[in-house]
């Protein structure tokens, strides 16, 4: 499976379009991380626990998108976009979408 955020896969030709594929995940941060982050909020800087959490979530959303593309019979996803929205206190939705295609 090849993924790209451009309209084509570099050096390959698109032979068939399958349509939009999406993947999402909603995650809440857990309390231990929140306490550490609370301390970090005083001095500022990176919240490493959150970075990791979001990175993992984004990977999962991407994996779900890829699974959907595979079930359609595609071998690549082009024009991938990411979106993040905080839907409630302490929870965020990570969303990935793109166009499933077949390349040769």
């Amino acid at each position, binding site marked *: 499976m090849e993924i790209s955020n451009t309209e084509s896969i570099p050096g390959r030709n698109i032979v068939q379009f399958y349509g939009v594929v999406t993947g999402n995940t909603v995650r809440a941060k857990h309390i231990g991380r929140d306490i550490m982050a609370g301390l970090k909020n005083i*001095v500022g800087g990176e919240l490493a626990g959150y*970075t990791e959490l979001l990175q993992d979530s984004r990977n999962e959303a991407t994996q779900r998108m890829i699974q959907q593309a595979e079930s359609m019979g595609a071998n690549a996803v082009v024009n991938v976009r990411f979106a993040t929205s*905080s839907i409630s206190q302490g929870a965020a939705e990570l969303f990935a979408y793109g166009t499933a295609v077949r390349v040769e």
Partner: protein
Amino acid sequence: MESTFYQVLELVLNFGLPFLLLLVAYIVGTMLEKGHFRSIRKRESEYATFPVVTFDTMPDDWSASSSTLVSGSVVISLDYFKRVIAGLRAIVGGRIKTYEPLLERARREAMLRMIEDARRDGYDAIFNVRLETSRLANSRRDGKGTAGVEMLAFGTAVKFASRFARAQ
């Protein structure tokens, strides 16, 4: 005599503690920021020869043999001192200088992580780079919980068909 002691204690707790916190936040925050900027500059000069562009198609002189999506992200928090200064700034309006370096260093860090992601897997260049900013909500209803800002950088990394494809 005892009542004056309590009055002093109350004064210290009400004004001294927040002031102390402000001072600690300022000193530690400034130190961390300087250290981070040093590390960013060092790594940026290390990767100066690695091509990263925002074009949505590949430049003509690149010929790719394989490609993949790469990304880098960082979540940062605003320190206490900066929040207070920004709160004061919001009364009169204008440029909030304390936030600018914070967002700048987060963005540069995200870019560097994206480049490191690509280099680790042996890619030669990145194009169609996009940067996104999103705010994470407070975890508590009163707005006092932790909040952060996430910076995400992503793009398509390519391996060149020949090592010297770009040299001409």
